[in-house]
């Protein structure tokens, strides 16, 4: 008996140590993919910008100065000024907050809703499955941006509502993913064993099925962050996301579009910020995908 206890203890010790080392190992394997290092650096810079905007931004992003309207880039204003004399660099630095928030929160929302939907459908099967997956298919049939626009219009303008709208739109993606995995795991012997031992549906779903689908969800989520950033910027560009005077990359492009002839730099910098950020996040996500699951498909659906 004592020997068995000792064995158990040793095995638990190893598991504990493995658990602690796991994030580091995943990171190391992630960085093995070409471009993932670049992605990590870009993502880190954008997050740093978002966190320290109050300190590193050279000007107040909403301070208007009519003496300095539409200035070309100079040493005083590295990226120039906009139609209200506001410093473009400062607005881009503050705008990173919106994009990072939009990317993380809306995808987080999709994950929570989608995982619940998928687990319920995959676990209960039958009519629950048909109903939930029918709903997911129907939602997925609407062009994503159109659905996001319509939901955004219902909820009203603003960043929070835009994030909810994007979260709802991409929920079916995660629901489908989790449901498929849950279906395949459901019939495995260890699930049957847990059921025989008296585990209820909630415990089975969260303790036994979820850990099996988690890594696929993490991978898909990391690939969707870039998509969410673009969709939020598109909503702001179309006037439904972040409202003036709060700076966001999408709404900066919206107003810059009207000054394209006189001030092309106004369009170039916010767009480049979106492009680089999404590029970085995608490269990092791609590395994560290869590190966690080499069988998954390339690129997320947008």
């Amino acid at each position, binding site marked *: 008996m004592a020997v068995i206890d000792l064995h158990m203890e040793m095995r638990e010790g190893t598991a504990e140590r493995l658990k602690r080392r796991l994030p580091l190992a995943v990171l190391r394997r992630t960085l093995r993919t070409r*471009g993932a290092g670049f992605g990590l650096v870009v993502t880190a810079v954008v997050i740093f910008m978002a966190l320290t905007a109050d300190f590193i931004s050279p000007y107040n992003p909403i301070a208007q100065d009519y003496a300095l309207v539409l200035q070309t880039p100079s040493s005083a204003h590295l990226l120039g000024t906009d139609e209200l004399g506001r410093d473009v660099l400062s607005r881009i630095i503050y705008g990173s907050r919106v994009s990072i928030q939009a990317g993380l929160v809306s995808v987080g929302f999709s994950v929570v809703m989608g995982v619940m939907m998928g687990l319920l459908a995959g676990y209960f099967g039958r009519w629950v499955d048909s109903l939930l997956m*029918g*709903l997911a*298919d*129907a*939602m*997925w*049939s*609407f*062009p*994503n*941006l*159109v*659905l996001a*626009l*319509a*939901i955004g*219009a*219902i909820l*009203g303008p603003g960043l929070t509502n835009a994030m909810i709208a994007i979260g709802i739109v991409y929920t079916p993606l995660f629901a489908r993913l989790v449901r498929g995995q849950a279906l395949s795991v459901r019939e495995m012997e260890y699930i049957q064993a847990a059921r025989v031992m008296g585990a209820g549906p909630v415990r089975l779903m969260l303790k036994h099925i979820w850990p099996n689908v988690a890594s696929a969800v993490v991978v898909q989520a990391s690939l969707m962050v*870039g998509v969410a950033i*673009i969709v939020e*910027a*598109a909503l702001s*560009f*179309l*006037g*439904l996301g972040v409202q003036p005077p709060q700076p966001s990359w*999408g709404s900066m*492009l919206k107003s*810059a*579009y009207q000054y*394209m*002839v006189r001030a*092309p730099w106004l*369009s*170039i910098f916010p*767009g*480049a910020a*979106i*492009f680089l950020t*999404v*590029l970085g996040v*995608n*490269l990092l996500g791609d590395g994560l995908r290869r590190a966690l699951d080499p069988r998954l498909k*390339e*690129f997320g*659906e*947008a």
Partner: protein
Amino acid sequence: MSRYFLRRAIQSIPVLLLITIITFAIVHLLPGDPALAYLGEAAAKDQVAYEAVRLELGLDQPLPVQYGKWLGKVVQGDMGRSVRTREPVTDGLSGRLPVTFQLALMAILFAVVIAVPVGILSAVRPGSRTDSVGTVFAISGVAVPHFWLGIILIYVFALWLRWLPASGYKSPTENLGANLQYMLLPALTLGAGQAAVIMRQVRSSLIEVLRNEYVRTARAKGLRERVVVQRHALKNAFIPVITIIGMQVGRLFGGAVVVESIFALPGLGRLAIDSIMFRDFAMLQGAILILAVAVVVLNLLTDVLYAYLDPRIKYA
């Protein structure tokens, strides 16, 4: 084959029904009063006229009844009248539909023309310079936002080089040449992201097919590499590519919303945005519904095409 088509068509009926429910729900959850929008600001104070309009639009009835009546009419091709222009919604939609379809079609064509050759070259010589350039293009193509690319293309080709018009639209029946000039930049903008996704798929599925035994046999027979790729590998590699193109349709229509706004094209996407801004509920309902139904129909056609091309799928 036709039985398979029929079965798939019947399977999509519940999804279509759910789509109508979601469309109806979205529009009825929108803030604002359709009757007020219909009357306009001036007449809004007239209580009698207000009640009359509510009655006319059926707004006094419970929602499920309204939905049933609406669906009954939609099936017969009657989607009501626009509260803004007073024209029948179906007229408004049928005028806009060809613009969006032309845009989508040109974008896909453009994407395929670029993506397929580059994808094939990358797959045949993985790690070559073409492959690297292709990979960079594919990764960038997915990350670049439509609205930014559109602005840059306008800047370069319309304002700077003055080769193409910046925005606007001419009907192809009126003047095909001018129509193509107006549609070229929007199609390039919309197609770039598609090209990236299609190229990735061509590359990865061709690489996979080239690993097969039968390809090795073909090579062992002494066939030239060109013949092996063209005659033996490509056909099989294209099956998943077609699925990807079909699956991208929804994304294409979503992108059309942005692209049509930037280039001032009178398509369905812009109609949807305008309808949201002007609280034109009936028109919005029609625009959203027709876009979603188009996605379902095109996905159905893709599935059938897929089954036709891939003999491993039984269509009994």
